[in-house]
Every structure is written in structure tokens, then in C-alpha cells.
């Protein structure tokens, strides 16, 4: 409550327009009446209650502010708010039960072809698409609590959906129960900061054809298939948490046709595959921590010129797996807990190279059901023999400078 009073005060100062009160016994009984009466620059203050007024279109620069989360209900048939004007703000509302159509993507809040829109601290419940930005520039989506009702993948929309946007900031939102928690397509120069995306049906974060974007301090956990980054370049991913994405096609981070990007200071924990790379080029994977994953890295032979440097690999079932003999990537200066070499000159760097792909990893790659023999003494013997005389494992895939001790990584994680 205090927060919203404060927020209100802020906007009072900024907007300098009139404030229109909506609610029982106030000037306006419905939001629609208030919106019709409002002038550009006005603030519409919505008092607690349930407002089921069908579709509300914000075609002028107004700010909607909810007091104690008034409920805007779409009765499972409407798109609740549609924004078409620049400079609109929507704060502190509970928006629920949007409709769902096969022909149009109905959303809780849809923003169409405009700019400078701010959507903050709303509660989105049981919406098809919750927040949907289409052809929008210079806008912000922050502090929203987005909870969907998971149905089948094809019948559920995304939590925060952006299509063809520029310079958007997605900050500190919580997304759960949607198809993709956060979805980007053709979105450039944008930031995704400090969000938590969990238990979505498909991906926690999904982005395609989105260049020059930055992802920082987000947590993606327990999503059907983790995080997917496809067909993009110049993407920066720092200080994110990728946790507990389990399943046959689940990845902490899936990179497909990505180039010139940096993945730094992230933590990958308990994923079936920490990072899965396919067609990835010129990516720096630096100072990340891979812990207790099935595969820390799966680097397909279609990847080239990637640098895997100064990462920490601890307690993974397999550190690196690949599907071919050709290795065009560089592994250097990582800490591998499976390294058994020695360090005679005591400079902290092992004197013999480490080969992170074991024979057994190669066997499992070809015949997945051999998985049941993991950690069998027989497999251990085979791996030892292969280490001495590599024949099946890619010879060129090695770390020339494996670290002897686990380095302290300078990670700054969200809690």
C-alpha cells in the first residue's frame, strides 16, 4: 500500500495531469467511463473491486494505477487491456482470465505498435498470453507476477511475449505456468534482468532472431526444456542461474545457430545438459560453473571457433560430449574435477593435458541405453585404456592447461 502511495506520488509529479478515481462511490463507476473522460497525461486510479468490462483500449497517454490490486477480469473471453498509444503506464492491477482464440493471440495486456510504455508490478493470473508487446520501442516491463494455468503446449501462450521490439527492459518479473516464460522474437538492443522463470511448459526463456541483447542475473529453473537461444548474434549472458532442467530434450541452455556471443559467470546446476551447442560460432564461454549436470557441455561437431575458458566443472556425470571427430573449439584453463594429472613445477596448471570426452561418453552418445552401465568397473577399465591410447574419442578435444585447484569465480548471483 505504501509502495503504491509512493508510486502515485511519483506519477503525480511526473504526469501533472488530473487524477480520475474509479470505484464504488467514486467519480467513475467503471474504468471505461474514466478512460473516455481522461485527457492525455491523466492518471486513472482504480480502487479495489472486480471490473469485468470486456476489452479496454488505451488509445491515449494515460496511466492506470491500481490501489490494492483491483481485479480486471476477462471472463475467459476477452483481451483485457490493449495499448495503442505511446507513454501509457499500467501499475498495480490484477489482470485475470483472458480469453483464448486460435486465430488471434489474446493477452492480458497487449501493446501494439507504440513506444515508451511502462508495465509494472501487476499480477497476471490465468491469462493466455500475459504481457504481449508487438512492434514496441523503448519500453519497460518490471516487477510483474505472471502465473498461468498450464494446459497443453499448443493451447498455452507465453508469459512475457515480445515480437519485433527494440530497446525493451524486462526486469524482476516472475513467470510461471506458461508455454515460454519469456519469449523474444526479432527483439534487439534489449535487457532481461533479474527475472525468475520457473515451471513453464516449454522454455524458461526462448529467443529467436534477437540480436544485441543482454541477459543478466536471471534464474531459470524447472522448465520443461530450459532456455533456448536460437538464430541470434551478439548476445550477452551473465550471472544467470540455470537449474534443474531435466528430461530427454531439456537443457540448461540450448544454443542453436548463435554467433559472436558471450556466456560468462553463469551457474549451471543439475541440468540434463548444462549447455547444448549446435551450429554455434565464436562464443566465449568463460568462468561459468557447471555442477552436477548430466552433461556439462554437449558440443556438436557443427560448432566452431568457440572458446571454453576458465570454467569450473564439478560432479558432472559427463563433462563434455560431442558427436564427431572434428573439433574446432578451444578448451583452455578450466578446472575439471576428473583431472588426474600432476603439476611438477607447482604453477597451478597441470602438466599433462586433460581430455574431457571419455570413451564411455562416446558410447552413450551412440547407444543411449548403455547409460545403465555408468560407473561400472568395466566402464572404468575401458575409460582407463582409452585414456592411454585414444582411438574412439576425439583426440584434438583437450584442455592443455587444466587447473589443479578450483578457482574462485567472481559470480554475483540473485538469491
Amino acid at each position, binding site marked *: 500500500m505504501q509502495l503504491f502511495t509512493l508510486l502515485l506520488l511519483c506519477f503525480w509529479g511526473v504526469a501533472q495531469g488530473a487524477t480520475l478515481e474509479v470505484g464504488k462511490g467514486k467519480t467513475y463507476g467503471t474504468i471505461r467511463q474514466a478512460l473516455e473522460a481522461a485527457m492525455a497525461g491523466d492518471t486513472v486510479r482504480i480502487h479495489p473491486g472486480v471490473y469485468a468490462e470486456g476489452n479496454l483500449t488505451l488509445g491515449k497517454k494515460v496511466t492506470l494505477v491500481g490501489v490494492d490490486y483491483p481485479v480486471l477480469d476477462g471472463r475467459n473471453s476477452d483481451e483485457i487491456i490493449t495499448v495503442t498509444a505511446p507513454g501509457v503506464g499500467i501499475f498495480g492491477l490484477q489482470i485475470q482470465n483472458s480469453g483464448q482464440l486460435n486465430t488471434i493471440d489474446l493477452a492480458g495486456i497487449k501493446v501494439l505498435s507504440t513506444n515508451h510504455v511502462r508495465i509494472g508490478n501487476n499480477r497476471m493470473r490465468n491469462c493466455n498470453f500475459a504481457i504481449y508487446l508487438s512492434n514496441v520501442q523503448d519500453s519497460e516491463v518490471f516487477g510483474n507476477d505472471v502465473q498461468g494455468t498450464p494446459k497443453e503446449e499448443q493451447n498455452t501462450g507465453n508469459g512475457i511475449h515480445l515480437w519485433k521490439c527494440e530497446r525493451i527492459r524486462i526486469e524482476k518479473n516472475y513467470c510461471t505456468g506458461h508455454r515460454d516464460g519469456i519469449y523474444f522474437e526479432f527483439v534487439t538492443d534489449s535487457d532481461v534482468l533479474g527475472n525468475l522463470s520457473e515451471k513453464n511448459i516449454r522454455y524458461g526463456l526462448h529467443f529467436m532472431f534477437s540480436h544485441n541483447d543482454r541477459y543478466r542475473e536471471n534464474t531459470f529453473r524447472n522448465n520443461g526444456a530450459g532456455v533456448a537461444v536460437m538464430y541470434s548474434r551478439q548476445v550477452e549472458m551473465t550471472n544467470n542461474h540455470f537449474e534443474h532442467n*531435466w528430461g*530427454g530434450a531439456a537443457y540448461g541452455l540450448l544454443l542453436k545457430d548463435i554467433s559472436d556471443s558471450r556466456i560468462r559467470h553463469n551457474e549451471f546446476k543439475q541440468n540434463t545438459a548444462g549447455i547444448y551447442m549446435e551450429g554455434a560460432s565464436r562464443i566465449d564461454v568463460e568462468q561459468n560453473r557447471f555442477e552436477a549436470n*548430466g552433461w556439462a557441455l554437449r558440443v556438436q561437431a557443427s560448432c566452431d571457433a568457440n572458446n571454453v575458458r576458465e570454467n569450473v566443472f564439478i560432479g558432472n556425470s559427463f563433462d563434455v560430449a560431442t558427436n564427431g571427430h572434428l573439433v574446432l573449439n578451444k578448451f583452455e584453463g578450466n578446472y575439471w574435477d576428473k583431472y588426474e594429472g600432476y603439476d611438477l613445477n607447482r604453477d597451478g596448471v597441470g602438466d599433462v593435458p586433460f581430455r574431457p570426452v571419455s570413451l564411455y561418453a562416446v558410447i552413450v552418445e551412440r547407444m543411449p*541405453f548403455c*547409460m*545403465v552401465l555408468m*560407473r561400472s568397473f568395466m566402464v572404468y577399465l575401458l575409460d582407463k585404456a582409452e585414456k592411454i591410447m585414444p582411438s574412439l574419442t576425439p583426440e584434438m578435444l583437450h584442455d592443455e592447461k587444466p587447473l589443479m585447484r578450483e578457482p574462485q569465480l567472481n559470480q554475483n548471483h540473485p538469491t
Partner: protein
Amino acid sequence: MKTSLVKYVLYDILQNRIVIAYTVFLLAVSMGLFALSDQPAQGLISLLNIVLIVVPLVSLIFSTIHLYNAADFIELLAAQPLKRSAILWSEFWGLSLAMITAIIIGVGIPVLVYAPNPTGFSLLGTALSLTLVFIALAFWASVATRDKARGIGVALLTWFYFALLYDALVLFILFGFADYPLEKATLALMSLNPIDLGRIIVLLQMDISALMGYTGALFNALFGTVWGIIYALSIMLLWVAAPLYFAQRIFRKKDL
């Protein structure tokens, strides 16, 4: 089964130098492995190998030798008004309790100190179940063969088969039939070896992330839920019960 008899056998075995040495060896190796590795998880991996190789071997060989050495005592007991099954059960529980004590001290204490987590406890559970399984197998081997040397030979071969040969054979079969749907077959193959079952119980904790990567429906149903452990444990129980049943059937009619 007579409790006094169990007690007698138990005290007799607990004073045995080999059991004491076994306990000390396990304790030293476990403590050493944990102390030497940077991460407790790494220590557990090394310890898993010890448990899967050494525990079956010692349980099997020690029990076989003990049973042959106790042949006179068993003969004496058979002359008393005691049921044959009571004699067998007393020997089994006496031996089992002694070996379980060794495991609890030798593996249980280090696990409690260094890795008191689900993986550590599943490793301890595996060690205990393997002990019981291989004592039961030793009973069968020693009751079935009269000659001590041959009995020990059978026991050794059994260990070699389960600990080393079996996985190589499985790998061989999987390679040979790689083009066929082998999901159910692999599970069946794993159930036919108690050491593999024990290993899978630990894997379900240690490598669950990787196990979930295999898309087989049966695998996911089994490994993704608590049923995997229940399945493995119940098959393991069968592995204790079946050899004991056969041993008892032979022992009942055996001319001592």
C-alpha cells in the same frame, strides 16, 4: 532360529581377526578417500567402486570359509534336538549381523562424517544389501559342494562373474544388438546382477540428471520416480531370498 544360537555365532565371528581387519580396512579406505578428494561427491564415486568390488568379494569368501570351518560345529548342532532350518538361519543371521556391523562402522561412519546426503545413504544401503546378497550366495555355494576347495572356487568364480564379467557381457550384447529396441532388455539384464542393481540405486541419486537424459519411456517412469528405488530394492531382496531358499532346500536333506 534360536536367538542364543545367533548370539553365539555372532560373538564367535566378531572375535575373528579377519572381520576386524575387514572393518579397519573399510574404515581406513573410506576415510582416506574422503580426506584425499576435494569434493565429498568425488570421494563417494571412489568409494562406490570399493563397495561394488570389495564388499561382495569379502562377504562371499569369508562366509564360504566360515561355513566350511564351522562344519564340525554344525554337525554337532545337527545332533541336538534342533531343526535343520534353525541351524542354517542362526548361521546366516550371525554372519550377516557381523558383516553388517563391519559395514556400518567401516562405511557408515565415514559417510555420516563426510557425506551425510541421499547419495551417501544410498551407497551405504547398497553396501548393506550387497553384503546380504553375497552371504546368501555363499550359503548356497558351500551347502551345494562338499569339498572346501571347490566351494571356495565356486564362490570366487561367482564373484568374478558378477563383479567383472557380467558388465562386459552386457556391453557386448548391447553392442551386438544396438539396432534393436533394447530398453526392456537392458533393465532385465541389470536385474540379473545384484552388483548392477546396487550400482543403479546409487546412480539414481548421483547421476539422476544424466539418467533423465535418456528418452526411453520405461526408463523415465522408473528412474524419474521413487519406483526406481523400490524396484531395485525388491529385486535385491529376491536376490537374498532365492539363494537362501535353495540352500535351505539342499541343507534339509543333506547328509552331513
